[in-house]
């Protein structure tokens, strides 16, 4: 970037300092600016301060939370499961049995241990993209198969709100078939749709959502999601 506006009689602009620290100056301008530093005591400080600002910005985003793909989340369930199974096995060794998440904890184990004995997964659908939904169902099937194969307990609930409730209706035969197939195969898999969304769609868009028979109606999808998370369910965004 060519800049010929600065000279020994004119203070160096912030634009020029920015261009300098961003490596946007030509070699000639860069050398010219460097020669100014010798004549201007404050210039080095201004450059330093601007560079520090840039580095601070870069540093702030150097380590950010990873995106949570369903595959990664699904994988992340397995270490939890391993821990849960280990705790459960320990319980058995100690002569403690009959631990189920919906039963009162009479085992003597801390509540957290009994809760971890059964993995509970909530899959949250918010988008009406059928391709993405089919992909999610495919991942779910793999998850359920894996748990079943390992004789491990898992409970999966798919909650849809927003546009995603349409996926649980009869509008998409491909998805309806998959849901019927999976529901028939796994009794530890359930589907729920948000009534608030359905009512809202009826009022605002005139849409009548005809839910699949495997889908239960819940008052609020979001409340369900929050409640499940509070109860220790693993959250996966579908």
């Amino acid at each position, binding site marked *: *970037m060519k800049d010929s506006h600065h000279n020994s009689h004119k203070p160096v*602009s*912030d*634009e020029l300092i*920015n*261009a300098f620290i*961003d490596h*946007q100056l030509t070699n000639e301008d860069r050398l010219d600016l460097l020669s100014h530093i010798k004549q201007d005591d404050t210039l080095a400080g201004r450059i*330093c*301060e*601007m560079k*520090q*600002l*840039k580095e*601070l*910005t*870069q*540093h*702030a*985003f150097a*380590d*950010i*939370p*990873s*995106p*949570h*793909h369903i595959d990664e989340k699904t994988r992340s369930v397995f270490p939890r499961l391993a821990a849960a199974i280990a705790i459960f096995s320990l319980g058995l060794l100690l002569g403690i049995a009959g631990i189920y998440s919906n039963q009162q904890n009479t085992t003597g184990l801390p509540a957290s241990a009994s809760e971890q004995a059964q993995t509970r997964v909530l899959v949250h659908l918010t988008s009406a993209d059928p391709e993405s939904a089919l992909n999610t169902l495919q991942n779910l099937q793999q998850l359920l198969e894996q748990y079943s194969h390992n004789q491990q307990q898992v409970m999966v609930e798919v909650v849809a*709100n*927003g546009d995603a409730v349409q996926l649980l209706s009869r509008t998409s035969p491909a998805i309806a078939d998959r849901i019927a197939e999976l529901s028939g195969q796994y009794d530890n898999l359930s589907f729920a749709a*948000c009534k*608030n*969304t359905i009512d809202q769609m009826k009022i605002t868009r005139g849409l009548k959502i005809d839910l699949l028979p495997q889908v239960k109606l819940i008052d*609020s*999808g*979001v409340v369900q*999601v*929050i409640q499940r998370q509070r109860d220790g369910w693993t959250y996966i*965004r579908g």
Partner: protein
Amino acid sequence: MSFMFKNRARHKKLSRQLCENRNRFYKLAYSWSGDSMLADDLVQDATQKALASFDSLKDDSKLQAWTCQIMLNCYRDWLRRRKETLDIDELSLIGNSNPQRELSSADTTQFVRNCIRQLSENHRNVITLVDLMEFSYEEVSLSLDIPVGTVMSRLCRGRAQLKLLLADRPPSQTSAANPGLRRVK
């Protein structure tokens, strides 16, 4: 036939470049939105749109700037949709108070991120493209569809604003990591 083969090879090459730079796009989207899931969605949307419209990319060397432009449009669409629908459910999800987030906001990194998100969209876009994507001013100009001169002036004003915001950090949050950024009157 030869054209089709070349075109397929070009698409493959561009797709690979997009995949290789996914983390950088994600970082940029995160700096705009401050939400890992939304950032991931934005990258996903932008990537899908880019993959579907490689034919409209005239200069392959501008792939990243072009994709950032698409992602920015995705983000603006999202912001507009959010305003239009004002879905209480969504608001409660996004705006929920998270103790973990509140705790982490006390550290320098979170403070700087918050300051960047407080900037106006124009200033934030330029700063994040230059500092996080390490774009040249020309690439920023292409991404945002503004002249290079405007890039420079927005960058200048944006950084000045950021400096002021950082200088307003409460004393309890001041750390050794940021000894030089103080307001000088």
